């Protein structure tokens, strides 16, 4: 079965290389790690395998870009990705991270007096910016349980912030490999008016994608969130996470989509919603081209 983790997700560096970064952050601070990161990113930028992972996105985001400029863009994308990973490690090691979560709190937080929450909430996001820290912030501020669909890729040796402290994740993780069982659990979560986080740029389940125009070409994107919304009555909040500075992050709410119950035309009925997500993600990449961490060919048939 193709899962959320069915795409290349292996860490570029070895476990030892990651430990060197962690030691540097712990002893000398995050800026020392940035200095090392500069050299590491420069080295990786010259590796053909790194370029191959970055090109599918960058060539569509910057069509007609020359060879040297493309190299610079690859460096910049890797650099921003590295900064997010260093910041996440710093959050785990030293607790240093500030997340501006007003927008996130406004849609996910405790209901205000007089309000009644009618349903759960689906947070549909993508692999952008400080997404890991957004989940940590959300789990601490939502006032209701938070569940995240997806497990770490095998071969991903990066530690989550809580793993540095030997603690459990502050949110519950749903393994997509549970298949129909995971789907039943997700529906239960939404009926219990809890929060479910789903990535909109990775497929869940065999064949569970619809082609949407993204950066000029059709890309297969999952429609799980919208189908789940129709079945549960939970709205879909499309959110994108950003790194805004040294150990700082923020979430922007791009749209809140209500999918009516009883859509009758099978998967095709969900195409407009998937397209809406793709368009919002495209807007995000226009504004923040180096904070969309897409390292595989999303458009591959």
């Amino acid at each position, binding site marked *: 079965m193709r899962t959320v983790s069915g795409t290349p997700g292996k860490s570029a560096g070895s476990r030892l290389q990651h430990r060197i970064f962690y030691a540097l952050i712990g002893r000398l601070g995050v800026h020392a790690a940035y200095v090392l990161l500069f050299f590491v990113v420069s080295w990786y930028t010259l590796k053909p395998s790194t370029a191959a992972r970055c090109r599918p996105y960058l060539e569509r985001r910057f069509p007609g870009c020359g060879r040297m400029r493309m190299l610079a863009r690859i460096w910049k994308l890797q650099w921003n990705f590295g900064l997010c990973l260093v910041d996440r490690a710093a959050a785990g090691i030293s607790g240093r991270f500030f997340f501006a979560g007003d927008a996130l709190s406004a849609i996910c937080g405790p209901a205000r007096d007089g309000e009644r929450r009618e349903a759960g909430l689906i947070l549909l996001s993508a692999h952008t910016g400080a997404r890991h820290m957004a989940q940590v912030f959300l789990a601490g501020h939502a006032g209701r349980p938070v569940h995240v669909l997806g497990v770490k890729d095998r071969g991903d040796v990066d530690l989550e912030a809580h793993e540095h402290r030997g603690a459990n994740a502050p949110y519950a993780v749903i393994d997509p490999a549970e298949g129909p069982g995971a789907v039943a659990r997700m*529906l*239960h979560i939404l009926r219990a008016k809890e929060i479910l986080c789903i990535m909109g740029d990775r497929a869940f389940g065999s064949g569970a994608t619809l082609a949407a125009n993204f950066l000029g070409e059709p890309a297969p994107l999952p429609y799980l969130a919208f189908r789940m919304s129709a*079945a549960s009555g939970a709205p879909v909040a499309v959110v994108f996470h950003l790194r805004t500075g040294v150990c700082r992050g923020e979430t922007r709410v791009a749209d809140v989509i209500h999918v009516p119950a009883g859509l009758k035309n099978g998967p095709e009925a969900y195409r407009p919603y998937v397209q809406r997500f793709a368009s919002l993600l495209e807007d995000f990449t226009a504004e923040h081209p180096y904070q969309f961490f897409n390292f595989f060919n999303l458009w591959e048939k």
Partner: protein
Amino acid sequence: MDIREILKREIIKELKLEDVSPEDIRDDAPLFGEGLGLDSLDAIELVVLVQRNFGVALDNAEEARQAFASLNSLAKFIESRLAP
């Protein structure tokens, strides 16, 4: 009507299985993958139709995984929940 017959009729209707009749669905064949060939997302409709038709909630991943193994196991799960 037998729970299995209701399930077959509802699965065909809700999942829009064209060219499939209730007789084509074997009681012991897997619902997902080989067998009836449903995919993971079809489980959403299955959960909803079980709740709507029988008032039975499938809210535990492991229970759901076992119940969704075949039509027989799903019917047995519903019967166990309906038993006084």
